[in-house]
């Protein structure tokens, strides 16, 4: 079993009267891809944002290699984040945005420009971001997440808005990174895609981590052969449990 890269214990977050996360326990194993799945509003994005420090949890711990990260800043140099919505300052060019990230992160990281090459972004990076199509912006977004060869990649709906070819390129990249020992947390609404990428699954429901384990384990306990069916079964059971 790989060692835990991220260990989340008893994580809770409340927005007004809504418990977005309640006592979430979750382990992300080093060198593996974990899919965060669950219905809308289950707390997936809040969970991701807590790991990034964008959201400040009310209670609980998040450890990265055994070290607390809540309230810290420097640990984010080890993380590459691809947000769900790719909206950038419209008068900057992609190249300027990348230069900014380099400035902010400082020297040291080995640059990985593979996605810029594969997506053929060189020319697009010289134009202001406002003239780029949504798909191209999403490619820039992906290229920036992988650029600094981070140990941990956090991808929120990475293939949303990408054409099939670009989406395949991105998925190949994710698998290649996994092969190189990188850890990945990924959310998606497309279960087939996650099945291709992930070995582990965290199933979120109403702010709780209802299941955390391997993909095979999830299929076994739900007696289903695909992730989609397995998650659907979990959701039905979950709702039944919630209603009871």
């Amino acid at each position, binding site marked *: 079993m790989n060692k835990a890269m991220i260990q989340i214990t008893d994580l809770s977050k409340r927005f007004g009267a809504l418990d977005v996360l309640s006592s979430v326990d979750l382990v992300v194993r080093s060198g593996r891809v974990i899919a965060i799945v669950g219905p809308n509003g289950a707390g997936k994005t809040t969970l991701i944002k807590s790991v990034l420090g*964008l959201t400040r949890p009310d209670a609980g711990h998040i450890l990265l290699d055994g070290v607390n990260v809540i309230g810290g800043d420097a640990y*984010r140099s080890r993380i590459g984040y691809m947000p769900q919505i790719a*909206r950038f300052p419209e*008068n900057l060019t992609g190249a300027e945005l990348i230069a900014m*990230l380099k400035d*902010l*992160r400082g020297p040291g990281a080995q640059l990985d420009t593979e996605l810029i090459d594969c997506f053929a972004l060189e020319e697009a990076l010289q134009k202001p971001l406002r003239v780029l199509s949504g798909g191209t912006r999403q490619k820039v977004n992906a290229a920036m997440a992988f650029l600094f060869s981070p140990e941990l990649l956090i991808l929120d709906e990475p293939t949303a808005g990408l054409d099939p070819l670009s989406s395949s390129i991105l998925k190949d990249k994710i698998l290649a990174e996994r092969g190189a020992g990188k850890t990945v947390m990924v959310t998606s609404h497309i279960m087939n895609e996650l099945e291709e990428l992930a070995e582990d699954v965290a199933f979120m429901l109403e702010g709780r981590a209802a299941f955390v384990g391997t993909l095979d384990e999830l299929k076994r306990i739900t007696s289903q052969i695909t992730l989609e069916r397995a998650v659907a079964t979990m959701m039905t059971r979950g709702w039944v449990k919630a209603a009871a």
Partner: protein
Amino acid sequence: MNTIMKVLKYQARDAVRSRWLIAYAIFFALVTDGLLRFSGDPVKAQLSLVSVVLFVVPLIAIVFGTVYLYNAREFIELLLAQPVNRRQTYGGLYLGLTLPLVLECVVGLSVPFALHGADAAAWGTLIALLTAGIVLTCVFTAIATLIAVRCEDRLRGLGTAIAVWLLLTVVYDGFVLFVLAVLSDYPLEHATLVMMMANPIDIARVGLLLRFDGAAMMGYTGAVFLKFFGGTVGIAIIVAALTFWVSAPVALGVRVFQRKDF
């Protein structure tokens, strides 16, 4: 180079290319040029510009500032997902918004004077006018940044911004006059001074009044202030009050920003 400078560098580069800001500079240039042509006297033109600056600079700074920062929401998230601390990021965002506005205002006001070949005296008073424009920009972008991080809802935020501007520009003077009229039997000089300090636009107006000497058109509060503090003490108090008006919203904004959930 720390995070403030890094964020400032790129955000200012984005903002300065904004069509709205370019329009803002052109607006000032046209108004200034028009006043210079019609009055034929740089000092008279500047007196008219005082009202324009006191009215327009706060409005543009607070409205453009809030709208810009609401649009930058995802950009701010991208910044905070990097190894940066929030206090410095806030400083970078504030300055990256303020400097382009300051630049456009200064360019728009001074280029026409340079083209019309103003003399040394005119430049002296122009510098006072530019200082007022710069300080008011700093104050109102500080308030705009605070509003944008404090209010989640952008419509409410924009409404608050316009309300703050209306309050300080229009409503406040009415309120002061009302108080003075109702309580005219009492000695109100000190109360008037306090009321003036509570409004950065009033402070800037008095600051300009002291520089241009005269012009009772600039409001009752200004007249009282001139009588009390014609010299160094007055300037010192003005500087202290304006420093407060910049640092208080910034300090408050940093606090909010540090605890904010994105």
